[in-house]
């Protein structure tokens, strides 16, 4: 994402708006995947991490209730990067007590990126909180709107929502596959999960293919360094 110049407040709010608005696509996809509007809203409030939410809903869409354990596992593993954001943010933000819980919930791609883009210490803090809060507000509003829209569509194929879901996931991964190892991991995982979906129950093809692709990534990096 490009982070424009300007005051920390205006950057934070515009990033919040731009990111938040795609909560519409999340809301619509979640409802057509089979969650009700309350469950969809709960996901945006409680899980609050786009990648994990799209993963959770996508796995549920393919396998229904029996795929829920795999949906939880996928969302959890997609969310691991937030832990690294939190590690980098902790010394800058330095939240105490209950504020730690709030800071943790707002620790996502965008709040981390805006905070990292500021030079002055106080702006790093302000950028984190303002971006986190504005993404949270806009994301949740957009989710409700999307869920209401999705409620009118009974079949995900109407308006190409199944293709829209694939495009959303692809757009999330795109900025991360601009170097060769990342691109190879992505390719192996796409092909692997597609083929495994012929033999494994829903949810597992993605987990197994991803595990294999990550192992391959490490192996490649190691042989590069030797």
């Amino acid at each position, binding site marked *: 994402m490009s982070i424009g110049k300007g005051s920390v407040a205006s950057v934070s709010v515009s990033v919040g708006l731009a990111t938040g608005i795609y909560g*519409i696509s999340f809301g619509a996809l979640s409802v057509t995947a089979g*969650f009700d509007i309350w*469950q969809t809203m*709960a*996901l945006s409030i409680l*899980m609050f*991490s786009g990648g*994990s939410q*799209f993963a*959770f809903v996508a796995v*549920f869409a*393919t396998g229904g*209730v029996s795929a829920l354990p795999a949906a*939880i596992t*996928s969302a*959890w*593993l*997609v*969310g*691991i*990067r*937030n*832990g*690294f*954001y*939190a*590690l980098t*943010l902790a010394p800058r933000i330095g939240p105490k007590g209950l504020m730690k819980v709030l800071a*943790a*919930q707002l620790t996502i791609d965008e709040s981390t990126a805006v905070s990292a883009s500021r030079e002055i210490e106080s702006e790093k803090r302000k950028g984190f909180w303002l971006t986190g809060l504005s993404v949270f507000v806009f994301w949740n509003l957009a989710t409700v709107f999307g869920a209401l829209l999705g409620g009118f569509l009974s079949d995900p194929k109407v*308006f*190409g929502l*199944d*293709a*829209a879901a*694939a*495009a*959303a*996931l*692809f*757009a999330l*991964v795109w900025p*991360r*596959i601009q170097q060769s190892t*990342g691109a190879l*991991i*992505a390719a*192996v*995982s*796409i*092909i692997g*999960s*597609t083929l495994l979906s012929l033999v494994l129950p829903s949810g597992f093809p*993605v*987990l197994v*293919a991803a595990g294999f*692709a*990550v192992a391959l990534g*490490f192996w490649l*990096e190691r042989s590069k360094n030797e």
Partner: protein
Amino acid sequence: MNSWLAIVLGSIAVFSWKFLGYLLPARLLESRMLSKLAGFLTIALLSGLVGVQTFSGNGQLEFDARIPALLVAALLLRLKSPFIVIVIVAGATAALLRLAF
């Protein structure tokens, strides 16, 4: 498992990483192995979902309007279009192709 329970458990699971980062010492960041693992896992899982979401349906391979839609999405990504535009245009591409054929 019931959907509500899964939503709560999944949310706790996602939160656990975020919270853990504020409790652990920052020197863990120096582990290149760990930060690589986080990056690789995100790429691999999201791509795996792209594969299943694009090429499969009802437990078999299905090649349909989703494939040209994804190609359009790739083109728009190269052109640095905003996320919401990519999602809408990809959906519209598939919908129009299904109407036409």
